[in-house]
């Protein structure tokens, strides 16, 4: 293998698996932004780069020769054994997300990639870990999930519109998890308000696809198990067409094109009627 390396004077030198290549690789490790840690198969630290010093707070001389378990929180002590077992078998542990302890006892979220170090005969003689601090990334991810949930909660309130009647706006394109959350919240509101009719308003559904239709059917079935009847409201011509084309069976579900019409149905179900104060209906 031939490498051309430019020296300071502008001359080129060719290194063949020699000192220059080693120096180059060492420089790459030292200047890397990711912590790179070399360990024996027993878990003793043998190399520790600058990024590792910054990430974990230990200087190289403080940690080289000590066990990697110095960084592992007590409740995760089996992880080192498990990881090293896999590495001994020649496997690579990829992007393993876990928690590690800094020198100042601060816990950080990290992503670890551990690879086997092999000698010339291919025997595994150690492990090399690349660690990345993902604390910020994790916080952002969790904030996003929380935000998505809040948006869902705000955009789909289940309102009690009369004694025994709730209205739930249905929005399309919900993933399975959100759809389940929506249905569960609707059922909980039914219990809270002691309702027997739920108006599922689909005015806000942009398009009726198989998944939304499936969610609708499951919600209606779940409502039945709680003794509540569903009325589908806000069925626009486009939605009616799509439901028909999808062959969705809604023969035992009452449907109406507007929420107002749906409310009228709800009152009938509850055997109620609205009459004017002077006695005329």
């Amino acid at each position, binding site marked *: 293998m031939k490498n051309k390396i430019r020296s300071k004077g502008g001359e080129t030198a060719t290194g063949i698996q020699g000192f220059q290549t080693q120096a180059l690789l060492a420089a790459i490790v030292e200047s890397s932004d990711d912590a790179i840690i070399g360990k024996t198969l027993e878990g003793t630290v043998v190399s520790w780069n600058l990024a590792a010093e910054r990430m974990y707070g230990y200087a190289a001389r403080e940690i080289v020769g000590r066990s990697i378990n110095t960084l592992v929180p007590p409740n995760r002590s089996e992880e080192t054994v498990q990881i090293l077992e896999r590495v001994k078998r020649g496997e690579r542990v990829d992007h393993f997300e876990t928690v590690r302890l800094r020198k100042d006892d601060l816990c950080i979220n990290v992503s670890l990639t551990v690879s086997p170090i092999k000698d010339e005969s291919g025997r595994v003689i150690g492990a090399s870990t690349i660690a990345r601090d993902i604390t910020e990334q994790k916080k952002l991810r969790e904030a996003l999930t929380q935000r998505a949930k809040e948006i869902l909660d705000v955009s789909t309130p289940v309102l009690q519109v009369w004694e025994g009647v709730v209205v739930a706006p249905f929005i399309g394109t919900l993933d399975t998890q959100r759809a*389940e959350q929506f*249905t*569960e919240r609707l*059922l*909980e509101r*039914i*219990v809270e308000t*002691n*309702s*027997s009719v739920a108006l599922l308003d689909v005015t806000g559904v942009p398009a009726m696809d198989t998944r939304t239709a499936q969610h609708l059917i*499951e919600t209606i*079935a*779940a*409502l*039945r*198990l*709680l*003794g*509540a*009847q569903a009325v589908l409201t806000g069925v626009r011509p486009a939605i009616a067409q799509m439901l028909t084309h999808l062959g969705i069976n*809604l*023969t*035992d*579900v*009452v*449907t109406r094109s507007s929420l107002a019409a749906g409310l009228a*149905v709800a009152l*009938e*179900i509850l*055997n109620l009627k609205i009459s004017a104060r002077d006695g005329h209906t």
Partner: protein
Amino acid sequence: MINKSLSVVKIRDTLMVTMPTDPDDVMVSALQEAVLEAMEKYRPQGLVLDISAVETLDSFFARTVAETSRMVALMGGRTVIAGMRPSVAITATQLGLTMGTTMAALNVDRALDLLTAKPPRRESA
């Protein structure tokens, strides 16, 4: 509410059966036996199956309930399942478990209303 045992109580013309929190297969089979025995003894018009303490539902339970309900119907009675928990209802629908034509009520009060009054008028589509 953690309920450990099956209870069968006669209230006027209705049989009230309360299921425990985590009914195993033995308990579920015992349910059917207990119901049939009580039906024989009291000849009630209706059966209320209170499952408000049940946290998990499996296909064996669902099937047994549907069967029991059919047996009760054959003997001239009606069955209402009361108090299913939201999480249980969702699991049941996801697994495609229906209780057949058995009626369901939000709670025991509603169940008793259903059985003692005329059936509520359902608007036809």
